[in-house]
């Protein structure tokens, strides 16, 4: 039995300090107060002064409360029993199920050796045309959804969770509204996807420190499943809350802030999570899809800015649609060459026409006269938004490609589309071709 300390010397923010010996950096302790027990993690050692970050927050902790060191860092249970379960940030069950204690694994493990990484090559199909068709998601990719508060990013994530062709879905919720948590749970339960899902959810009312644990716990579990050959999709929402939690802790710890109050290591902190995305040669993979709500819709804000430097592209979710401009999957060219011969050409062609449509709309709004070509574009833009961009549209890639040709045929002549003639011969819808 390890020694129990019962003299807390200082309490500041969520950080308490005790005098103790033989303590290791990163070790866990259990703090028992009148309000219950909480885990705490050693975040600074100075002689025998040990500073701990209390996961449940320091509210109500008294200087006389007991601190018992556990002799190991933060761990989480890993087994197939996790599937279908809901936990909080420190791994306690949030559903009514039993707490799991077997096969504990450490979180925040070492990073993957770059020499052992492989070039990504497998597409993750989601059934959402704006993703599969225009910005394919690739296994082992890390992609954020840049959005603003009020946009249906959680609905989008839930749909991707339901439809994505992966073995296991891990949802890491940070600062989630309780309604959103229930929404995720109900959607996955109704869709029958709960049996392959694991939730680690920190809600907005939970102690802020637990928010910091969510990505690490989720990714540690994901990593184990991936090593066992599973294709894992990790959904992290919302990374802005995670970054704000980092900021809060850093300020409490009296760290010098760098940019708008965020700690100088924000980039490193985010990168060490996102870089867990990996494709293990001969085993499974981890794909990370995160949500970053941009404060004030400002992409130069430190959170989206640092995220953009780390991730392999981004989806912009605006007005309930994934924007074709700005959204980018850097890895799409690794996979969209192998789907169908017309995929790339049709993708480029349709986006170019949509850009022309946007110009036509601008022209129209400024009161210029619309030419025939402009009218065709306006028709095309409407169809494109309805058939492709609308988030409720749900179709496999091949059908989306066929529909793309249909839209083109409905609005333009063959020459106007600027598509390669061999593709037109092969894919132009038959009815139109007969004309």
């Amino acid at each position, binding site marked *: 039995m390890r020694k129990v300390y019962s003299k807390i010397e200082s309490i500041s923010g969520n950080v308490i300090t005790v005098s103790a010996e033989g303590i290791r950096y990163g070790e866990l302790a259990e703090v028992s107060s009148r309000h219950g027990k909480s885990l705490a993690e050693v975040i600074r050692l100075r002689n025998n002064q040990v500073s701990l970050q209390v996961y449940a927050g320091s509210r109500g902790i008294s200087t006389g409360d007991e601190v018992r060191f556990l002799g190991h860092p933060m761990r989480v249970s890993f087994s197939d029993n996790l599937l279908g379960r809901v936990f909080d940030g420190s791994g306690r069950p949030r559903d009514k199920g039993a707490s799991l204690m077997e096969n504990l694994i450490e979180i925040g493990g070492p990073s993957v050796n770059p020499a052992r990484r492989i070039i990504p090559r497998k597409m993750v199909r989601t059934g959402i045309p704006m993703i599969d068709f225009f910005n394919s998601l690739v296994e082992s990719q890390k992609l954020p959804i840049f959005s603003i508060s009020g946009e249906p990013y959680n609905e989008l994530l839930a749909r991707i969770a339901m439809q994505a062709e992966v073995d296991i879905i891990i949802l890491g919720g940070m600062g989630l509204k309780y309604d959103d948590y229930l929404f995720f749970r109900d959607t996955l339960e109704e869709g029958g996807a709960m049996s392959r899902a694991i939730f680690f959810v920190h809600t907005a009312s939970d102690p802020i420190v637990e928010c910091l644990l969510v990505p690490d716990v989720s990714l540690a579990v994901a990593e184990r499943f991936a090593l066992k050959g599973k294709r894992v999709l990790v959904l992290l929402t919302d990374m802005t809350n995670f970054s704000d939690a980092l900021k809060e802790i850093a300020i409490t710890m009296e760290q010098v802030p760098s940019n708008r109050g965020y700690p100088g*290591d924000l980039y490193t902190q985010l990168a060490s999570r996102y870089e867990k995305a990996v494709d293990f040669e001969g085993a499974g993979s981890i794909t990370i899809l995160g949500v970053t709500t941009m404060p004030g819709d400002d992409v*130069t804000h430190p959170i989206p*800015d640092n995220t953009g430097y780390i991730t392999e592209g981004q989806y912009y979710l605006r007005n309930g649609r994934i924007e074709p401009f700005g959204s980018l999957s850097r890895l799409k060219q690794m996979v969209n060459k192998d789907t169908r011969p017309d995929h790339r050409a049709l993708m480029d062609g349709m986006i170019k026409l949509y850009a022309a449509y946007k110009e036509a709309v601008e022209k129209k709004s400024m009161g210029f006269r619309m030419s025939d070509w402009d009218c065709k574009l306006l028709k095309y833009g409407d169809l494109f938004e309805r058939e492709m961009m609308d988030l409720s549209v749900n179709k496999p890639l091949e059908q989306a490609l066929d529909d793309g040709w249909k839209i083109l045929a409905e609005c333009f002549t063959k020459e106007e589309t600027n598509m390669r003639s061999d593709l037109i011969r092969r894919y132009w819808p038959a009815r139109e071709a007969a004309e």
Partner: protein
Amino acid sequence: MADAKGKVIGVNGNMVTVSFEGNVSMNEVAYVVTGDKRLKSEVIRIRGSNAELQVFEMTRGIGVADQVEFTGELLAVRLGPGLLRQIYDGLQNPLPELAEKCGFFLERGVYIHPLSRTRRWDFTPTAKAGDTVEAADQLGTVPEGIFKHRIMVPFNFTDSYRVKSVAPPGAYTIEETVAELEDSRGRVIPVTMSFEWPVKRPITAYARRLKPEKPMVTKVRIIDTFIPVALGGTYCIPGPFGAGKTVLQQVTSRNAEVDIVIIAACGERAGEVVDTLKEFPELIDPRTGKSLMERTVIICNTSSMPVAAREASVYTAVTIAEYYRQMGLNVLLLADSTSRWAQAMREMSGRLEEIPGEEAFPAYLESVIASFYERAGMVQLKDGGFGSVTIGGTVSPAGGNFEEPVTQATLKVVGAFHGLSRERSDARKYPAIHPLDSWSKYRGSANRMMTEYGRDILFRGNDVAQMMKVVGEEGTSTEDYILYMKSELLDSAYLQQDSFDPVDSSVSIERQRHVYRTIFDILSSKLDLPTKEEARQYFNSLRQNLLDANTAEWNSDEFRRLESEIRSQLQAKKIGVEQDAAEIVKHLTEQERPSHAQSV
């Protein structure tokens, strides 16, 4: 000195405070012993009997009273044959060997000898007994891939030495003695093929430093023609995310006309390094006919690897670059990205509780960046030969705003600035280097007056474009409109380049000169285009032909055909030459003269 011992008394992130006995020197390497692991670290501050160390590994599990061993040595890299083709982490651990030993993950506390100790190299002696030698003098050579690797007197030998014996030609490992040197006090010192050199000390064993004057060809048109880089020079590429910094670096690492390329992937995405790791062995270097890997060293400390080693990685890279420079080679060091390195400094500075400067970067940021870039240079070696280190660093400014401290500190010391713009990358104009904001202090291979003329057209064309946004096309005069079309033509047919097209991705200097002459000819012509509609059609078809010519093999029939078509198109509408352009042409040498300038 190596007898100093210490005990951990505090841990804060990756900084460990140690109380020690004996003598400890600044920046020396120490090992924190925790459990069965020895974690490499560096002394970064000494106060009384306490030293602060930055640990190059995760610090989890370190406890108060853990032992610390001081080595008395500064952080150093091992130099010798076998560096080429290697993939190292920031502390010169070979990553593929590490993977063999530890599997998928980077286990901490595992250090592997950077060079093979068993591989034998064919040594040919060049010095003979009785010669007098100093640091960096050649003792012999071994073949390393396509290069003749010089075996030199170690750079830390400060005396003058008499060669007592040199090993006969034969195959030796890097640990076998190849020569014995006798110093002025008569001590005999055995010399092997490899030695260590502290990373933060520049190697200065050369005769003199020269001004960088010879252009370094990158085969990127906008760089070589408008904002050139010199061998031994420095340049920086700042840009917001997604503007194509890394792609530009990758293209340069493939095509640059240098002997050796050292890639320091510092704190960026691991996936990008993987591209290089997997592609380079299969790509053929057109100059040597061998795999590109033969001339490459990769130092890789990606964003999720320990932060402190990030700082070490750029120094490791530059030290290896200087080592090969001593062999009379031209070395290019590409650092991606220096901002991550600066951030690593900021993190450490915060832990040391130093008074922060702007955006919490330490006050010494500027001087550290300056002294790093100053390690570039063209030098004349003691044997009269020349060698150079060219440094190109990317900068990732927060929010894409160039006013931030790292960009500003870098701009002060570099010779060329290739600023990437979000505007251009959004418009899919690659490379997204901004032609008006960027600058270079080096002399390129193109005629300055001609390129300035092109820049002027861009500048004025840009003004017209701005105006057109307000008054519309209708309110613009045809003359201005033609100017605008000319600037657009220069932009899309010359400044932009398709890095994925096999021909267009690398353009030789000869071809650049030739094509720019044609473009200059178009830009400087007065054209008979009475309406805007005619101008638009005319330039569109010119542009199409120029773009097609860009993807045609140099001097192929297709290229010649397109070119003669472009010329006849020009002649059809040309009614004279702009006055200022005629002045420039007058001053040109015969060889620089635009091909058809005299014909009108």
